[in-house]
C-alpha cells in the first residue's frame, strides 16, 4: 500500500488517557514493505550522493570542451567574452560555462521526459485509478522498473506508486537547474557531475513514462515477437482520410484510435504518425502507421497527405501550423506544453469545433482532452478529406525548372544547409531540365528548411527536393517491429553470461534522432553489420525507424530478417524515446539477475559492474536534441560509452580517455586489492565520430571490458581487427593495449599479432575481477 495524503479525522475519542475532540491525523505516506531486498546506500540520491563515482569517471574521461559560443549572455552583466578561458563578470571561465550549458541541455532533456511522464501518469491515474497494476511483462518480468529500483530504492507496483518517484525526479531537476544560475556552481567538473545526475533522473522519468503506458494501454509487454507494422509514406492509403499525429505523447493518438474503433471507422481512416508518438501508436494499434523520422515532417505535410494534423509534444517543427495551413489541413494542438497560440476549445461541444475547423472559420484549435481530440480529429478528417482532395504545396516539375532559372547561384542556400549540400549545383541542373541532382539530395536532406529561409528569391528549395524525390517518397514501404518495451528476465539469464564474459561481443544501442551526416541508410547498414557479427543490436526512437528503411534483394527489411529477441544477432526495437530506459534496464538487470548484485538503491556498485563488465555502447548517429543529451548523460553515469555522429560535436564537449596515459587505466582486482592495468577499455565515454566507418570500428573497440574472458576478448578483438582492416585498410596500432595474455589473441591472427606485441614491448598482465571501488575489494593486500 502506498498512499499520499492519508487523513484521519475523529470528532470524539474516549481513551484511558483522556477524551480527545476534533482529533485530526495527517499522514504523508503509508508504506507497506513488501520488498525483501535490503536497502542500498543511495535511495533517492541527492545531487551530490554519487559525486565521488562521477569524479572517478571524469578523472579517466576528461572533458574536452569545444565551445559553440565564445560568449556568455545569460545575465545582464554580459555579454562576457570568455575567449581563451578568460573569466566573465560573475567569475565563470570557459570550461565552467561550457559544462554549464551541457547541464542546462541535460536539464531540458530530463524535464521534457519527466514532464511527459507526469502528464501521462496523472492522466492514467484519473482514467484507470491509482491502484492500477504495473504489469510490463507478465510472468516474464519479475524485475520490472529496474532503473527506478536502482536509483530510488523503491519497487513500484501500481500507477500510484509512480507519483513519489516523479516527485523525486522533479525535485532533482529543480535543484540541478538552480545550479546553473549565475553565481552558483562554477566548477566544470561539478557541472559535469550534475549533468550525469540529470541523465540519471531522466532515465527514471523515461522508465516511469514507458511502464505507465505499457501497463495502462496494454502495449507489447517485453514481447520479442511484437507485431511487424507499416512504415513509410508509401504504406499510407491516401485515398482515405488521413490523420497525422506528430510528437512524443501517445495519449491523443489513443483518443483518436479508440474513437475510430468505437465507431467502426478503423478501416475507413488512416492514422499515422511522425516521431515517437508514431512508435507508441503502433504499439497500441497495429494498423497505425509510421511515416518516418523527424526529418519527414515537412515533406509529408507539403505532399498534402494529412487531412488533419494533431500535435502533442516534443520535437515538433514550430512552423507545423503554418505548413498545415498551406495545405488546408486543420491543426489540433493537444498538449499544454505546445499550445501553438491557438484558441482553447477544450470545453466546447465537439460538433461546434468540427464545424469551425471544416469550414475554415478557424484553422486550428487547442483541445486538452484526448477523448475530445479523438472525436474532433476523426470527424474533421472525414468531412474535410473530400474538400481538400489532398491539396499539396509541392510544385510541378515545369514550375521547378522555370523558377530555378531565377537562381543567382549566390550559395546562400548551401551556406545555410547543415549538411553543406550542393544545392546551387542541383538548382542549376534543374534550370536546365535535369532534376536528378535535386533527387539525389532527397536522401541526404534532414528536412530543416533552412535553405528556403536563406534564399534571396524565395525559392521553395526543400519542396523542389521533395518533388524531385517524390518517386522515392511514394516507394517508401517498410516493415518495422513495433516497440517491444522491456527485456525479459529470461532473456537476460540467457545472455548475461556470454555478455559479461565477452562471448557475445557487445550490445549496441542505436538510438536517437535523425540529424544524420549522410542519410539514414548508414544507420540501417550499421545495425545489419553488427547483427551479422552476432552483437545484440537494440534500437529506439527515430533511429529505430531509419534502421527499417532499407530492403534486401528480396524486399525484406531488417526487422523481418533479424529476430526481435534480445540475443546475439537480434535487432530489437524497444520503442519510443522513453523506451530507452529499457536499454539501461537491460544492463542493470544483467548485474542483478545474472550476477546477483543487489539492485536496490545500489547505483554506484551496479554502475561499476556495468562499466567494467557489460560491453554495451550507445550510438546516437543523428543526435540533435537536448533529450538526446540527457539520454546520453544517463548512460555516462552508468559507465556506458556513447558515440554520436559528427553533428554531435555541437554538444560542445566530449568525454575522452587517453589511451596513451597508462596511469589512467588501472582497476582494482576485487579478489586481491591489487591495482591492475587493463588497457583503455572502454577508451571513451562520449565521443563524436566523423564518418560511419570510424563509428563502426569504434563500436567494436568500445565493447571491450576488463572482465572479458580470454575467449571473449579474442572474439571482440577479432571483430575490432576485422573491421579496422576492412575499413581502415590496416591493422590497428593499439592492439597491444587490449591483449592481456597470449590467450586473448585470436588464433587466426596469432603470428601477425605476436610480431606487433614484440615490437611494442608488450608485457603480459592478469585478468582481474575488476572494480573502481575500493569498498568492493574482498581481501585487502597486507
Amino acid at each position, binding site marked *: 500500500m502506498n498512499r499520499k495524503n492519508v487523513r484521519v479525522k475523529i470528532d470524539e475519542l474516549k481513551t484511558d488517557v483522556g477524551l480527545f475532540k476534533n482529533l485530526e491525523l495527517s499522514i504523508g505516506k503509508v508504506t507497506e514493505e513488501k520488498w525483501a531486498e535490503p536497502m542500498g546506500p543511495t535511495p533517492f540520491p541527492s545531487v551530490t550522493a554519487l559525486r565521488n563515482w562521477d569524479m572517478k569517471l571524469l578523472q579517466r574521461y576528461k572533458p574536452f570542451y*569545444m565551445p559553440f559560443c565564445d560568449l556568455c549572455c545569460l545575465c545582464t552583466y554580459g555579454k562576457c567574452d570568455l575567449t581563451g578561458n578568460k573569466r566573465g563578470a560573475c567569475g565563470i571561465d570557459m570550461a565552467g560555462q561550457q559544462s554549464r550549458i551541457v547541464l542546462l541541455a541535460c536539464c531540458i532533456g530530463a524535464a521534457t521526459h519527466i514532464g511527459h511522464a507526469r502528464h501521462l501518469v496523472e492522466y492514467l491515474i484519473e482514467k484507470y485509478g491509482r491502484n492500477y497494476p504495473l504489469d510490463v511483462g507478465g510472468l516474464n518480468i519479475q524485475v520490472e522498473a529496474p532503473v527506478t529500483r536502482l536509483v530510488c530504492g523503491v519497487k513500484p507496483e501500481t500507477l500510484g506508486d509512480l507519483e513519489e518517484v516523479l516527485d523525486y525526479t522533479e525535485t532533482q531537476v529543480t535543484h540541478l537547474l538552480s545550479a546553473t544560475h549565475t553565481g552558483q556552481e562554477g566548477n566544470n567538473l561539478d557541472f559535469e557531475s550534475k549533468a550525469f545526475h540529470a541523465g540519471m533522473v531522466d532515465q527514471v522519468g523515461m522508465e516511469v513514462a514507458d511502464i505507465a503506458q505499457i501497463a495502462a494501454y496494454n502495449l507489447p509487454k517485453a514481447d520479442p515477437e511484437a507485431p511487424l507494422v507499416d512504415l513509410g509514406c508509401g504504406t499510407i492509403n491516401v485515398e482515405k482520410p488521413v490523420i497525422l499525429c506528430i510528437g512524443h505523447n501517445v495519449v491523443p493518438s489513443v483518443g483518436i484510435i479508440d474513437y475510430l474503433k468505437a465507431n467502426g471507422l478503423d478501416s475507413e481512416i488512416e492514422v499515422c504518425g511522425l516521431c515517437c508518438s508514431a512508435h507508441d501508436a503502433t504499439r497500441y494499434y497495429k494498423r497505425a502507421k509510421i511515416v518516418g523520422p523527424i526529418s519527414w515532417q515537412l515533406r509529408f505535410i507539403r505532399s498534402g497527405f494529412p487531412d488533419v494534423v494533431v500535435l502533442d509534444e516534443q520535437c515538433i517543427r514550430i512552423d507545423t501550423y503554418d505548413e498545415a495551413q498551406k495545405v488546408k489541413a486543420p491543426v489540433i494542438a493537444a498538449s499544454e506544453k505546445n499550445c501553438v497560440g491557438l484558441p482553447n476549445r477544450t470545453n466546447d461541444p465537439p460538433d461546434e469545433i468540427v464545424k469551425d475547423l471544416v469550414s475554415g472559420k478557424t484553422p486550428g484549435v487547442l483541445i486538452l482532452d484526448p477523448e475530445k481530440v479523438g472525436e474532433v480529429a476523426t470527424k474533421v478528417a472525414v468531412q474535410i478529406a473530400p474538400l481538400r482532395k489532398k491539396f499539396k504545396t509541392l510544385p510541378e516539375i515545369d514550375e521547378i525548372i522555370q523558377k530555378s532559372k531565377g537562381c543567382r547561384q549566390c550559395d*546562400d542556400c548551401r551556406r545555410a544547409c547543415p549538411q553543406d549540400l550542393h544545392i546551387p549545383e542541383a538548382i542549376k541542373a534543374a534550370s536546365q531540365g535535369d532534376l536528378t541532382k535535386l533527387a539525389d539530395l532527397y536522401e541526404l536532406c534532414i528536412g530543416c528548411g533552412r535553405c528556403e529561409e536563406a534564399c534571396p528569391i524565395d525559392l521553395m528549395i526543400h519542396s523542389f527536393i521533395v518533388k524531385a524525390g517524390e518517386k522515392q517518397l511514394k516507394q517508401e514501404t517498410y516493415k518495422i517491429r513495433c516497440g517491444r518495451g522491456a527485456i525479459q528476465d529470461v532473456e537476460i539469464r540467457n545472455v548475461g553470461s556470454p555478455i559479461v564474459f565477452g562471448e557475445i561481443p557487445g550490445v549496441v544501442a542505436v538510438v536517437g534522432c535523425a540529424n544524420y551526416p549522410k542519410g539514414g541508410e548508414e544507420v540501417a547498414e550499421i545495425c545489419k553489420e553488427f547483427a551479422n557479427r552476432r552483437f545484440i543490436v537494440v534500437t529506439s526512437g527515430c533511429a529505430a525507424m531509419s534502421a527499417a528503411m532499407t530492403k534486401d534483394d528480396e524486399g525484406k527489411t531488417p526487422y523481418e530478417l533479424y529476430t526481435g529477441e534480445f540475443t546475439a544477432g537480434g535487432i530489437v526495437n524497444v520503442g519510443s524515446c522513453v523506451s530507452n530506459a529499457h536499454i539501461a534496464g537491460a544492463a542493470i538487470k544483467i548485474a542483478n539477475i545474472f550476477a546477483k548484485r543487489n539492485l536496490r538503491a545500489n547505483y554506484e556498485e551496479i554502475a561499476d559492474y556495468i562499466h567494467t563488465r557489460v560491453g554495451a555502447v550507445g550510438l546516437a548517429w543523428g543526435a540533435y536534441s537536448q533529450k538526446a543529451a540527457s539520454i546520453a548523460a544517463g548512460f555516462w553515469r552508468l559507465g556506458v560509452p556513447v558515440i554520436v555522429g559528427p553533428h554531435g560535436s555541437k554538444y560542445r564537449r566530449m568525454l575522452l580517455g587517453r589511451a*596513451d596515459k597508462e596511469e589512467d587505466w588501472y582497476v582494482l582486482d576485487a579478489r586481491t586489492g591489487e591495482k591492475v592495468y587493463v588497457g583503455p577499455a572502454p577508451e571513451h565515454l562520449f565521443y563524436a565520430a566523423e564518418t560511419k566507418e570510424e563509428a563502426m570500428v569504434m563500436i567494436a573497440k568500445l565493447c571491450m571490458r576488463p572482465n572479458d574472458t580470454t575467449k571473449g576478448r579474442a572474439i571482440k578483438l577479432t571483430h575490432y581487427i576485422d573491421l579496422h582492416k576492412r575499413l581502415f585498410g590496416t591493422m590497428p*596500432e593499439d592492439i597491444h593495449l587490449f591483449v592481456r595474455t597470449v590467450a586473448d589473441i585470436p588464433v587466426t591472427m596469432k603470428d601477425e599479432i605476436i610480431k606487433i606485441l614484440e615490437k611494442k614491448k608488450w608485457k603480459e598482465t592478469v585478468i582481474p575481477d575488476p572494480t573502481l571501488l575500493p569498498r568492493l575489494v574482498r581481501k585487502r593486500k597486507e
Partner: protein
Amino acid sequence: MATAEPWQTAEVPGPKKAFVIAKADVAAKMINKAKRPVLIVGSKAVEIDFGDKKLIDYIIELAKKGKIPVVATAHMVNEFLKRDYKPKGWMPAVDISNRLTDPEWKGLDGKGQYDLALFVGLPYYMEWTILSGLKHFAPNLKTITLDNTYQPHASWSFPNTKVKDWAENLKVIIDNLGGE
C-alpha cells in the same frame, strides 16, 4: 568572391577571429617557420575533386614537401595507404585535437607537443567546433586551415574561396614549402 565570413552563415565566432590568409605563400612561410607542425586530414579530402587530382593527393604532396607528419582522421588512413603514403598516425579528429590541448603530450614521435596544427578536409561544422576547442584551450598552438572555407576559430584561415582558386593556393603552398 573571397570573403572572410564563416562558410556556414550562422556559425558566427566571438570577438577573436582568424586572420585571413590573403596570399598562399604567406601560409607557406608560416608553415616553414613552425618548429613542429602537424597536418590533420579529414574525410572530405577524398571527396573533393579538383579534376586532375583529389584534395588528398595535394595533401600528400604537401606533407612530403614540407616533411610534415600527417594524422588521418576518420577512416582516411585507408585512402592514404591506397596512395602508398603512410600517415604518421590515425585517430579520431576529437582525439588528436584533445591531445593538442595537453602541454605534456609527447606527440606522435615522442618528441613533444606541436606548435602548429594544419587542418584540412573535416566536415565544416566539426572543424569549426574543434578549432574552437583549440582556440580556447591550446594557448600555445597556432592553427591554420587549408580548406577553402573561412574558419573563424583558426589562428589563420583562407577566406571562402572557389575550388579552382583553392587548388592554385595549395600549389603555391607546396611550391614554397621547405627550402632550407
